[in-house]
């Protein structure tokens, strides 16, 4: 399979789907399924041609292992989510544009991961940013897309600046050579500005504000892509910044913290802060999608820490967490979308007991959160285990503390939607609701199966990662048949799974041989012997962790800070405006002259 064909077909199908949707909404939706599945299969077959280079028009591409890995994760998220598209077309305001943008952004991501030079990368990157900006706008809030676009634009511009700066030194845009010859202060400046777009995209701490806004308000069918897919673009930039820009080599002479150069450690610390911030904020969300968005912030922190470690174990963990989080997060978002499809809301306090109506969706969500929280036997456990081992190996105490906090805090926040949406009392309104159809169930089940497979046979994924590790010149993580071996111990996920099955079987047998229990209605529950007839009142879902939230509800909110800054900038603009464009022309002339004189003086001095 040829990359050109994949790109061309998806772009053409994007345009076609726009017109088909005009004729028949459902058909347009199904076209996105076909197109994204085509891209997925095509990419999968592309593995044979790794190493190839070619160019179309001005764009030049190189098929690398890591690009293939990233693109596959991305298109997996796209193709699985696209199964939901046909069913949401009626609820969408502009279904044609949605389908068009959906496929266009997918094409953009594919192109981006295989870019050979920075110009190609940047153009495809911007394609993704722009098309996703317009999709987010189709959701609940227009403001969300402003936030998304502003944060993305800051990142993109900084990256563009870094690329140009590197170009001025090295004279080339080719990714593997562009950063050669940088040193000293310029290297630090380029490093930080380059990775800025990555940080913005993963949602690392000061830039995390766009995730809840965009994930929470995007159309339900696009949130899984945003969280499972687009966030991983940032991880790609982070990957480039430690490999193509050999940060460890360039900064090797600098002050080191636990063996890591300070600039890199600083970024890892930012990752740690995002883990803590994401966890704390996720715990207090009332909207299921916003909660999952903040969990993406926290998981982004893990991915960043893992990738930046660039070692044998932690890096493998970070790279594997990409897949696990993409799969789990897409599955969780899809499950919430499926519930929203039936109930029309994502607010946790307005739902309850959906398990009795939608058991399959519940299983999907359950497996997704087990993976997200890093509990065996799901995939998330293996990647978090690798990251912990990597951290323990290097003795990075504070990062490890943040990682532990995020890991245990994730039990708290992932349990929120489980308890509020799926468990508890079914609301009277929802008593007649049905499970979603098979076509919507299918992608969720596939993702669930992937989560379990990644946890039981992690080596399938890790083998790909070892190839990536070998391609960037670090020693690959040691793999035996079913076992992952690290300095500090080894993990046999398959055996853990088997023993878990053994324990489960014993428990099941004891349960079965005992007398069958009497099935009672959910409302027949202990209420201190009081009669309660309203289901909604017997469901505890809002302010779930109130005593814990109270401990930090005084903490400053980043979004508020940004809003204040925005107001201040606006005021500054007004001040300038009042100085220059007053109703007295002579005042304007005065200030222009003063400014001119200053410019001349400063210019003379410099």
């Amino acid at each position, binding site marked *: 399979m040829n990359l050109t064909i994949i790109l061309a077909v998806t772009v053409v199908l994007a345009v076609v789907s726009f017109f088909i949707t005009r004729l028949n909404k459902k058909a347009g939706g199904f076209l996105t399924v076909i197109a994204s599945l085509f891209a997925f299969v095509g990419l999968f077959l592309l593995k044979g041609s790794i190493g190839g280079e070619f160019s179309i028009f001005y764009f030049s591409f190189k098929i690398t292992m890591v690009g293939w890995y990233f693109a596959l994760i991305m298109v997996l998220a796209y193709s699985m989510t696209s199964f939901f598209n046909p069913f949401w077309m009626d609820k969408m305001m502009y279904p044609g544009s949605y389908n068009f943008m959906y496929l266009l952004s997918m094409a953009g991501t594919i192109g981006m991961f295989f870019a050979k030079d920075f110009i190609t990368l940047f153009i495809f990157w911007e394609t993704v940013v722009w098309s996703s900006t317009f999709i987010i706008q189709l959701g609940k809030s227009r403001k969300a897309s402003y936030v998304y676009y502003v944060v993305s634009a800051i990142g993109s511009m900084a990256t563009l600046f870094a690329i140009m700066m590197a170009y001025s030194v090295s004279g080339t845009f080719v990714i593997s050579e562009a950063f050669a010859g940088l040193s000293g202060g310029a290297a630090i400046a380029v490093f930080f500005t380059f990775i800025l777009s990555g940080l913005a995209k993963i949602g690392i701490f000061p830039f995390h504000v766009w995730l809840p806004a965009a994930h929470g308000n995007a159309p339900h069918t696009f949130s899984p892509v945003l969280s499972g897919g687009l966030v991983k673009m940032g991880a790609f930039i982070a990957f480039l910044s430690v490999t193509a820009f050999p940060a460890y080599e360039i900064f090797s002479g600098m002050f080191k913290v636990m063996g890591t150069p300070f600039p890199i450690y600083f970024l890892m610390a930012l990752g740690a802060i995002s883990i803590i911030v994401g966890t704390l904020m996720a715990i207090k969300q009332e909207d299921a999608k916003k909660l999952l968005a903040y969990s993406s912030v926290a998981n982004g922190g893990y991915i960043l820490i893992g990738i930046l470690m660039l070692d044998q174990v932690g890096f493998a963990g970070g790279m594997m967490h990409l897949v696990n989080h993409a799969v789990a997060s897409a599955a969780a978002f899809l499950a919430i979308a499926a519930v929203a499809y039936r109930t029309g809301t994502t607010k946790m306090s307005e739902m309850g007991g959906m398990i009795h109506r939608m058991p399959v969706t519940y299983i999907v969500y359950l497996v997704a959160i087990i993976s997200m929280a890093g509990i065996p036997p799901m995939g998330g456990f293996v990647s978090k285990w690798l990251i912990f081992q990597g951290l323990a190996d290097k003795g990075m*105490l504070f990062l490890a503390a943040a990682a532990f906090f995020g890991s245990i805090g994730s039990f708290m926040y992932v349990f929120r939607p489980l308890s509020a949406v799926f468990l*508890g009392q079914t609301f009277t309104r929802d008593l007649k609701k049905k499970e979603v159809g098979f076509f919507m169930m299918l992608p969720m089940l596939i993702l669930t199966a992937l989560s379990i497979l990644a946890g039981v046979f992690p080596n399938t994924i890790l083998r790909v990662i070892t190839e990536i590790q070998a391609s960037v010149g670090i020693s690959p993580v040691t793999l035996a048949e079913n076992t992952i071996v690290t300095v500090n*111990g080894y*993990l046999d996920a398959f055996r853990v799974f088997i023993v878990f099955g053994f*324990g489960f079987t014993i428990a099941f047998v004891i349960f079965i041989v005992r007398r069958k*229990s009497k099935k009672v209605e959910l409302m027949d529950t202990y209420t201190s012997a009081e009669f309660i007839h309203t289901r909604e009142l017997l469901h505890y879902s809002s302010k779930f962790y109130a005593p814990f939230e109270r*401990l930090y509800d005084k903490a400053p909110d980043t979004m508020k800070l940004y809003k204040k800054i925005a107001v201040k900038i606006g005021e500054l603009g007004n001040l300038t405006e009042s100085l220059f464009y007053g109703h007295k022309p002579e005042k304007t002339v005065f200030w222009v002259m003063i400014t001119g004189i200053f410019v001349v003086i400063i210019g003379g001095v410099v």
Partner: protein
Amino acid sequence: MNVMSFVYGFLVLLGVFVFQTTLTGLNRKVTARLQKRYGARWYQQFLDIFKALRKDSTSHGWVFDFGVIMALGGIMATVIFIPVAGFEAFPGLDNIFVISYLLAVGMLGMAMSAAGSGNPWASIGVARALTNMLAYDVPLMIVIFTLIFAFDSSSLSEIAALQQGMGILGWNAFRMPLGGIVAVIALLGMLGKKPFDSFIAPTEIASGPMVEYGGKHLGFMFILHEFMTFIEVSIILSLFFGGGATIWEYMLKYAVLYTFMNIISGVMPRFKIDQAVKYFYRVPLAMAIVQGLVVIFTGLGVTLWF
């Protein structure tokens, strides 16, 4: 991995159940003596469990049942991984992260089943239990992280073996005294003993997650509690008190440590849940970080003091 491993695993489960349940019964007597009572018979805990299993039960839907089975299954799998005096049914899998996260399967199952009962008390109890877990686990994990860094191993049995043969001062609790204190405090939280037992407060939130359990479900919860106690005490015992060279030494040390926990808990009042979080994030967290920094930067405690 062969058939014998599973047979051993089953025997370990049986042995642990008998041992821990007896010990719990004896400790009920200890608590009673603290309160100047005569106390229950030593085999009372067995009677309670078998009686609960004998009774009829009520079920609130499939997740209520499934959660209970998943909880007990996960916990039993974890017990099989615990090395007892160097013996493991499945050698090499006693990784501390595996154990502490596999434990979470059980907890998740229990939380799921409890919330699935549709009772708000249960949800409140689960919320408190998870908050409590966040409180005690972070300091404890930092100390464990320090141990892994110090000994280059995350295997329980290896860390236990490294402390043996040097007398009582070879134990990590004495090599890293701050860490040892943190571990003991965290163990109180893990076991859900006073002062950290607000999530099962019987008169306040009607025993929290357990509110809807009766009959065999409740029996499962009791068995699960015995196993969970064994896992938690064993982790701390192996990491900080040298495990045991022989099975008898292990059992003796275990009994002493567990009884000590019970005596502390017997004379304590109860923290509110936010007070517990505040407490853990003030004193033990600071102690854990100081201990970690000392070990990482000075190496004190990795070797013996003397």
